[in-house]
């Protein structure tokens, strides 16, 4: 299908890349279909784009939180598993939303409310974790400290 995006222009995407957020994403509840695009073709990068199929200007920038916070923990409760119809842990994908204001170096990551995907059924939802994680955690804590030294 043809996808209109503000960032990448017109794209041709396969149905397998589409993800349904049944209840939308909090704050943007009206948009329920997105296209998950790895930031590079080799699928090796921890970065992804989540482009709305309904609104060309709506595009989230996501990253694998475990690449940046190795001790990060996400517990999927029964209700989330049921909502996403997630039965096999191998089909679960956890990605965090990044907020970039200015340069990428100052990007922050929302560890409190990661996006959970069922890669098999292509469904997703934003889960609010009970743990005391921050909504604006620095993406590059380690690099910043090294630079300060």
């Amino acid at each position, binding site marked *: 299908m043809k996808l209109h995006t503000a*960032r990448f222009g017109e794209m041709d995407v396969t149905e397998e890349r589409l993800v349904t957020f049944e209840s939308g*994403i*909090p*704050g*943007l509840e009206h948009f329920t279909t997105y296209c998950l695009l790895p*930031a*590079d073709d080799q699928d090796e*990068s921890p*970065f992804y784009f989540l482009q709305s199929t309904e609104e060309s*200007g*709506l*595009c*989230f*920038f996501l990253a694998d939180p475990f690449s940046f916070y190795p001790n990060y923990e996400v517990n999927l*409760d*029964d*209700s989330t598993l*049921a909502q996403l119809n997630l039965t096999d842990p191998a089909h679960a994908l956890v990605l965090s*939303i*990044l*907020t*970039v*204001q*200015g*340069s*990428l*170096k100052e990007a922050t990551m*929302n560890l*409190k*409310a990661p996006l959970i995907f069922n890669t098999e059924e292509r469904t997703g939802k*934003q889960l*609010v974790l009970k743990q005391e994680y921050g*909504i*604006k955690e620095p993406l*590059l804590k380690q*690099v910043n400290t090294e630079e300060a030294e």
Partner: protein
Amino acid sequence: MLVLGRKKGESIVINDEIELKIISIDGDTVKLGVEAPKNIAIHRKEVYEAIQSENKLAAMQEFSLEDLREFRKKTSS
């Protein structure tokens, strides 16, 4: 909005499955106990609102793809 007066130790029941109990009252702080089925998500409203506004902010940001390429070069080297 339905407004009910409750004393410490008293509860209200919502839809036969959610119980909201007043645990303690101290000045302007009320401690609430919530008993609900596991599939009911319960959050402090300010946390939920902060997530909503962070999502809106994250959805509208501008940065160049060139920036991402540069960034990846730097972090992978």
